[in-house]
């Protein structure tokens, strides 16, 4: 259960649309039709097992992205499709799937898997096989280090945690921070990076409590945290455990400000945490209230298609396909061309980031920015310091 997570990457969408679509619409009839042999992306991810919910969220994002991409003429006239192989987020199965994709000439790039364990087990195979592994939920700092075929639009914690620390210390003015973290590679790394950034900014970390991924009861742990007398609490959590912690925290009568990573940014967090969610701070790359056209299009499209608000895993999946499609449109659909294209492409706008370009050295997105959010009247709203 070492899910790694990545910041709410919600925003992706439009990049390809802008570049590709404007060009295409100029050249083609208004309702671009795709034809010919489809271009296939191989997806390795959990459809069953403990992490099946994330695979289901991906599929929603992928399908919405394909509606858009293919509605705009696909990859230069060829439809984009994907083949989803269920890995159960199990490394034994991801390596078998990797062999399958590498050997299948139809597949031009691979997306996934979900956790570090399962993705990184397959990385050496993808590297040797020369197939891009686009790990869109892999914020593990080592994920892209296996080789130059590993790319990610997920922001590594080394970039995002200092942004949280800055918000906690300099915006909220916290001096004595207590941290609760999911004891996985993701949570542990996040906690360490947050702590060192916050201490550098002059705050003190008075407690840091790890918990296991399948834990539901936090009362005893929270008593420990309370006795350290923090003036604010940072949660390195996913939305489901984050919601449980926030509820139990308020039940215990702890009422200091709570800040949580962007992975709690999900309508489900509000529902699961109920009233206790009120006043919780977070920050995201994707804010649904954002007036950016890519965000509006994504959110509206998602609401129309599924009748519910998207969450950040939906946006991650949506962005991943749009980025790959933009690269393919511009640089071609050869495996090598996609790898090289990822290093060259720039200025794609997405749901998560205003513009996406990759640092060819780290193979991560360059210079991401976040939007601070607070839960107000049962909804995520953009936070401005004047709100107090």
């Amino acid at each position, binding site marked *: 259960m070492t899910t790694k997570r990545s910041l709410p990457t919600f925003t992706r969408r439009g990049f390809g649309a802008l570049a590709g679509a404007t060009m295409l619409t100029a050249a083609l009839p208004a309702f671009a039709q795709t034809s010919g042999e489809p271009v296939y992306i191989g997806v390795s991810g959990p459809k069953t097992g403990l992490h099946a919910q994330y695979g289901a969220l991906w599929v929603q994002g992928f399908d919405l992205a394909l509606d858009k991409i293919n509605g705009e003429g696909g990859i230069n006239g060829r439809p984009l499709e994907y083949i989803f192989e269920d890995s159960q987020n199990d490394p034994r199965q991801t390596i078998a799937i990797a062999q399958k994709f*590498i050997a299948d000439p139809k597949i031009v790039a691979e997306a996934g898997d979900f956790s570090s364990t399962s993705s990184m087990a397959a990385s050496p195979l993808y590297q040797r096989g020369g197939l891009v592994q686009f790990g869109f939920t892999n914020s593990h700092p080592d994920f892209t*280090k296996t080789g130059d075929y590993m790319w990610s639009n997920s922001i590594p914690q080394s970039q995002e945690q200092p942004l949280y620390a800055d918000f906690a210390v300099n915006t909220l003015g916290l001096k004595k921070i207590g941290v609760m973290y999911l004891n996985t590679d993701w949570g542990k790394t996040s906690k360490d990076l947050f702590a060192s950034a916050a201490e550098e900014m002059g705050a003190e970390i008075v407690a840091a409590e790890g918990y296991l991924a399948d834990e539901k009861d936090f009362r005893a742990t929270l008593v420990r945290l309370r006795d350290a007398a923090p003036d604010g609490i940072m949660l390195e959590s996913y939305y489901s455990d984050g919601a449980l912690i926030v509820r139990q925290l308020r039940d215990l009568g702890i009422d200091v400000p709570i800040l949580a990573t962007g992975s709690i940014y999900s309508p489900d967090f509000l529902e*699961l945490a109920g009233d206790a969610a009120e006043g919780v701070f977070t920050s995201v790359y994707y804010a649904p209230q954002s007036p950016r056209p890519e965000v509006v299009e994504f959110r509206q499209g998602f609401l129309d298609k599924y009748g519910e608000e998207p969450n950040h895993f939906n946006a991650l999946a949506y962005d991943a396909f749009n980025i790959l499609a933009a690269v393919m449109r511009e640089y071609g659909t050869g495996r090598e061309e996609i790898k090289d294209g990822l290093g060259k492409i720039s200025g794609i706008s997405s749901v998560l980031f205003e513009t996406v370009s990759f640092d060819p050295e780290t193979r991560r997105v360059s210079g991401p920015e976040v939007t601070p959010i607070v839960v107000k009247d049962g909804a995520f709203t953009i936070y401005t310091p004047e709100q107090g």
Partner: protein
Amino acid sequence: MEFLSSLISMPWLDYSISGLVIGSIYALMAVGLALIFGVANLINFAHGAVFTVGAYIGWTCLVGLGLPLGVTIVAVAAVSGGVGALIEWLAIRPLNRQSRIAPLLATIGVALMLDQIIHIVFSPTPRALPANIPDWRIAVGNGTIGAIDITIFATAVISAAALYAFLFRTKLGMAVRATAQDDDAAKQMGVNINAVNMTVFGIAGALGGIAGLLVGLYYNSIDPNASFQMMLKGMVAIVIGGMANVPGAIGGGLILGLIESWGIGLFGASYRNLFAFVLLLVMLLFRPNGIFARGKERAAEPMTGTFVTQTKAITLPRPLIWVLIGVAVILPMANMPYITQVMTNAYLYGLAALALTLVSGTVGLVSIGHAALVAIGAYASALLTTKGLPVSLGIVIGGAAAALIGTALAYPAFRLRGHYVAIGTLALGEIVALVILNWEGVTNGALGVFAIPPLEIFGLPLYGTKASYWFVLALMLGMAGLQVRLLKSHLGRTWKAIREDTVAAETYGVSSNYYKGLAFGFAGFTAGIAGAVTAHQWSFINYDSFNLLFSVLILTMAILGGLGNVSGAILGAILVAALPEMFRTLAEYRMLFYGAALVILIRFRPQGLLGSG
């Protein structure tokens, strides 16, 4: 010193309250498990799945249909009671005359199916379960407790009291107890034992379902993945309280909650499950009848010998074996890297299953903690080779480490029998995983081990798909050949003698612990190299790479092939590793078919495909 002062200044009251709150949840779970254990002499692994069914029926009524809470409780009890009775009718009753392990595995198969049905029907995303329960809270110490906390506690106590009264004050209760003691005698006295068993499973199911509903309301969150962990905690609670002791289950649950909570207070939450499983092991070793048992009477031990279904093993004709080996050797020539990789995985499973079939089949110690041996081998080799040791040496040391550490850890469990071995090894498996997670200085903790060097032997790279296939195949065949030789020697006969009747073997001067140790050592070595090779193949492992589900899977393979049967273990591994691949196109329905296949196999061929050796 710091520890002592924290011991004194710790807010004991607050920790005790939180311990009692979570303890009542464990107790609620434990009551149903204890009831079933009392009657069927069986740990019902599907009890957790019934818990989940209850939670989702509750959601359907409360949120989906907008029914009031009272109606919901009745509906939940009725449906999950029905599911419980159905489990008895479909999966338990037909196995009445089979070995003890058969129904236990059948409940695992049913649990897989139920969990998967919930996944498919309700989606795997956690959902909120809001209800109009009074939201007053009483301040106790520095914290508060609410109406739902008290409801959970009261439900556990009242249901246990009602059950106790039912069992000891009613005529049907007497029939239940009679059936538990001797079902043949009960039948002779005119008790309809099938009806009794079904009633008991129904009651336990209803309780489990209500537990699911209440816990869902408590957390305002239900998800289909919570069930197994809950079941395990309930199991620890009944071991503490005495396996079949219904009121004891309440005590067991509360004690477990308190110890976990105090432990978290002293050491932190990452150690929570470590306390739970160490406690389980200590109880098994020193108070196997539970903390409330009077005196130290020994647990009944009718299971020696009967725990493994005895049949005549099918011996594959020699020419067939050579043909199969030949096919395996030339398989990569077909140039299908996907198939080659799947088979490499299957052979790695095969190595682990060989090890397990030796300890569980030949010696009769059924282990659900086999992943621990594999994990020790994987970590030993991974940690040493990332520091510069050659991979070939790392693999051998990995095997040796698993043999030594595994045997040392399991040694105290050698005196356990039957179910207790299964539970004890399960606890050991969890303990090893949690030590790996918490011992950061050595194991790198939650971060896992990254950049493990790829397979090679003396500078000869073996990481190509075909090369690693042949290497793993050779390892598996080599170890299998060795195991066959051992079984034919006096060692094999001694091991079987211990399995058949330990007391008789001891009387003949066989030191059973010594021979059990030898078996564990050999099996540990095989499992350890399986782990080491896996680590080099993946390049990344962490504490969760070899978890409880992995143990269950390996056990399934060994049983499928026929416990103790060497070629059976390999066949089982190939089937279990390849079946889910074949079902891949079924996507969400895959695990459902897998669970069903398990149940059907146990039902119709409990001695395994090739018969137990």
